[in-house]
């Protein structure tokens, strides 16, 4: 590993010597990582390799799990997130997250998207309307739902719900969108839509995407990181990972020999 990390491009996250324990269990071992602006970074690896754990450190959602301890540095916006002084509300406004299972709130489509801005203190109806429309347009959902903004979000299809969740995440104007296996519960057509959407969104946001699907990583990401048993085995441009990986274990995994 290493070549890609040394380039001069702008990074949003700089991670140094990150260790993470669940109780006494070391789940992430000495991770050095950088996430670059306006790129899609894919994280691949077999189940239990620490990729979901890793992505949840970036917005500190991991702290909701009791018994978690971390050491090292996760630098975001000149702040080390691990020192415990970070305002979670502010961090999560800037680092949005989309989950494996689409989980819209049982509220109207409008209220789902307006939720973030509202809890961050925005009250003006006009401004909220504007944000809702922009966010829904950005995820190509506006034309499908503009006539039923006040109906329940639970009436949407699975793929639409997931796009709504992305709209909900970008409504607070984040820098980074974390996606934790965003398409694993979706049909192929909805999956393609989300992938195309991710490619569009990277113009404005940096995206970190955990995925089980190696073709997906190959299709959409700029860089790919391969995790195995809590270690970052290899991190490089996606083309390199899939065509000329440096590590034997990476090669075995991407060619389907295990995992």
């Amino acid at each position: 590993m290493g070549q890609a990390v040394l380039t001069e491009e702008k990074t949003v996250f700089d991670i140094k010597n990150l260790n993470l324990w669940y109780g006494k269990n070391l789940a992430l071992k000495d991770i050095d990582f950088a996430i670059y602006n306006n790129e899609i970074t894919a994280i691949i690896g077999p189940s239990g390799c620490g990729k979901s754990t890793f992505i949840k450190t970036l917005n500190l959602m991991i702290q909701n799990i009791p018994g978690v301890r971390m050491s090292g540095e996760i630098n975001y916006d000149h702040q080390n997130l691990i020192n415990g002084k970070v305002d979670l509300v502010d961090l999560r406004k800037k680092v949005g997250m989309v989950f494996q299972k689409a989980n819209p709130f049982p509220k109207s489509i409008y209220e789902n998207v307006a939720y973030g801005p509202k809890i961050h203190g925005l009250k003006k109806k006009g401004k909220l309307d504007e944000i809702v429309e922009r966010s829904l347009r950005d995820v190509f959902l506006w034309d499908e739902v503009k006539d039923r903004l006040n109906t329940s979000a639970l009436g949407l299809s699975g793929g639409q719900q997931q796009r709504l969740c992305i709209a909900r995440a970008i409504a607070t104007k984040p820098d980074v969108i974390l996606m934790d296996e965003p398409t694993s519960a979706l049909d192929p057509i909805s999956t393609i839509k989300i992938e195309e959407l991710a490619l569009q969104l990277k113009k404005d946001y940096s995206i970190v995407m955990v995925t089980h699907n190696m073709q997906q990583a190959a299709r959409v990401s700029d860089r790919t990181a391969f995790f195995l048993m809590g270690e970052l085995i290899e991190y490089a441009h996606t083309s390199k990972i899939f065509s000329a990986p440096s590590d034997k274990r990476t090669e075995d995994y991407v060619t389907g020999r295990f995992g």
Partner: protein
Amino acid sequence: MDNKTMTASQRLLKKSNKSLLQMELRGKSIVLISALIIITATISITIFLGTKGLQAFFNNGVSLYEFLTSTNWNPTNAESPAYGAVPFIVGSFAVTFLSALIAAPLGIGGAIFMTEIAPSWGKKILQPVIELLVGIPSVVYGFIGLSVLVPFLRDSVGGQGFSLLAGMIVLSIMILPTVTSIATDAMSSLPKGLRESSYAIGATRWQTIWRVLIPAAMPTLLTAVVLGMARAFGEALAVQMVIGNVRTLPSAITDPSATLTTIITLNMGHTTFGSVENNVLWSLALILLAMSFIFIILIRYLSSRRQF
């Protein structure tokens, strides 16, 4: 395959199938009979209560209008008996709503504490406490109310102590377990993703509880309150011991009062079956039955609106 073993196994199969079939049939009849008995019992009670409850109006010439609008209750007065049930209808509704007013926020608050704030130790302490509250018989609640609460109210707020207020406090403690346990189920059956995604947007715990979880669980939370109210409406003994049992309409919360249930239990012993006085008690019971139907319809409506 060997022909002999084939036929042998087939014979075996058929035989066991037959006895299986018999067992199926027997099991089916047992559960069917149970279901029929339950249905028949319910329908018979309804019919019986319906005919008994209406006798006062059709056979004894009591005016339904008077029954439902007059506040004058004096069925034993030989010269001019009066059958106004309003004080008891008001009393029943008053203690029911007032006790729900206390039990709903307490119960839902306790449920949120157990599921959201301190799921580990909160549940360990509060759960057994609630189960204990369920197990206490109503006569004990009434007894405690009578010997502790009533004197306390007499000394602190004045009056006799026997009052709507006393009834409402005793009832709210009695329905608290119902409200809390159903509200806890409602909160803990919410999908985990709701909490996660709210936190991930930057919401605080309180914002998540208030803006996402409570609205999402609302139909079931309301069901919890309605079930509590149904219990409060039907409770007789404990209320009777603390409410004062007067025939007049209460004008303040500290006034003594009576409810439909307490008036039935107090008077059924000294009225003769078939008399007008007895028949109007059945009419009061019919109101109770009608109300319980309304509570059930309400609960059905609420559960049809459940989202999770």
